[in-house]
């Protein structure tokens, strides 16, 4: 699976399980959050990534963080 702030590009080049990231400069973080909150966000991205790895997909799909 791929996490990227530019999911449309990932789709164009052929990725199948795509997760939309926060921002180009902090894909799975957020510099505007307090440290602790950002760590939680990191973890949520990992949880979602692992969930997608266990999700069957038939075609290219862009997912967002819950």
């Amino acid at each position, binding site marked *: 699976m791929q*996490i990227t702030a530019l999911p449309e590009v990932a789709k164009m080049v052929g990725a199948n399980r795509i997760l939309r990231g926060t921002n180009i*400069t902090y894909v799975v973080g957020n510099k505007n959050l307090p440290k602790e909150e950002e760590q939680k966000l990191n973890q949520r991205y990992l949880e979602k990534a692992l969930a997608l790895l266990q999700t069957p997909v038939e*075609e290219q799909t862009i997912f967002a963080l819950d």
Partner: protein
Amino acid sequence: MLQKLRVVHYINQFFAGIGGEEYADVGFALHEKPVGPGVALQRELGERGEVVATLVCGDNFFAGDFEKNAEEGFRMIEQFKPDLFIAGPAFAAGRYGPSCGAMCKIVSERLGIPAITAMNEENPGVEMYSQYAYIVKCGVNSKEMTSVIKKMIRLADALLENKPDPRLVAPNDCIPSPYEYDYYTRNLIKNVFTEETTAERSIDLLLKKIRKEPFESDVLKPPFGRVKPGEPIKDITKAKIAFVTDGGIVPTGNPDRIPSRMCTIWKEYELDKLCPQGGGQHEVSHRGYNNYEVLMDYNRLMPIDPAREFEKEGRIGKLNPTLFTTCGNVSIVKKSKIMGNEIAKVLVDEHVDAVILTSA
């Protein structure tokens, strides 16, 4: 009178009339006459040419090793000194197509003669060999045989004529138009002289596009292709997970000189050395985004620390001890495909079950 063209034809066991799937394992055989669709081919050639030999091989046999078997097939037909090589048509047949493609590739490379086959767009042989062989477009049904052979011969005539094109910088370097002759583009680019300047031609094309008129672009879209989605992981608590990134993270000092744009190399680094908890050992070689945030915390590019926790807690089987990195900025598609294949091979060798790829 001109000498008759010597034509060699390649077909599979099915079209040679040997049999279907139960005979797909038969090896190479040679016939010094037209066989099966070769009869229609001979009819289309008429007095201009003669099918001097037909090479036959079982689909399974050939598919065992396309390159090696193409070599063997080539050795058998070389003696006939062909002026033209025809393979198939293979329509949508998934083993027959690549076999035809592999034969055309080796014949055109070794003998420098036109080598033509035909396939449906669904045939995997198109993706594998359209760069190396002239593959005429066709449907899925062999009822089209005669019309497809006509198209192949029309293209053969154009290639053999090699009519000098005064527009070309090298006038004898003629390539028949893929549009006009209905074959899959080989993505070959040639320099031509034109009456108008680039600016004039660009505006002309743009206006056509705006008016929704048909036009042929000079720029080829890179072929990205589609990949079948991987099966979902059944038990993530037993899976080995690896991080791959094109965000350009590298050890301090960038010892392997990973370029920050148009990168064609990738590296595998020990995760704990490149990204020890607390950081301080990495920098970023990527001129496509502001690296400051990732420089401050690698977890902004990849959720590495949470993955370490998950490994300890048994929520994932194992975190791969190495990280794969490259820089995805103005990258060349062709090179990126090569890098992707190389990385995938190492991942498989290291028994990695799943990958989290992050991109800036």
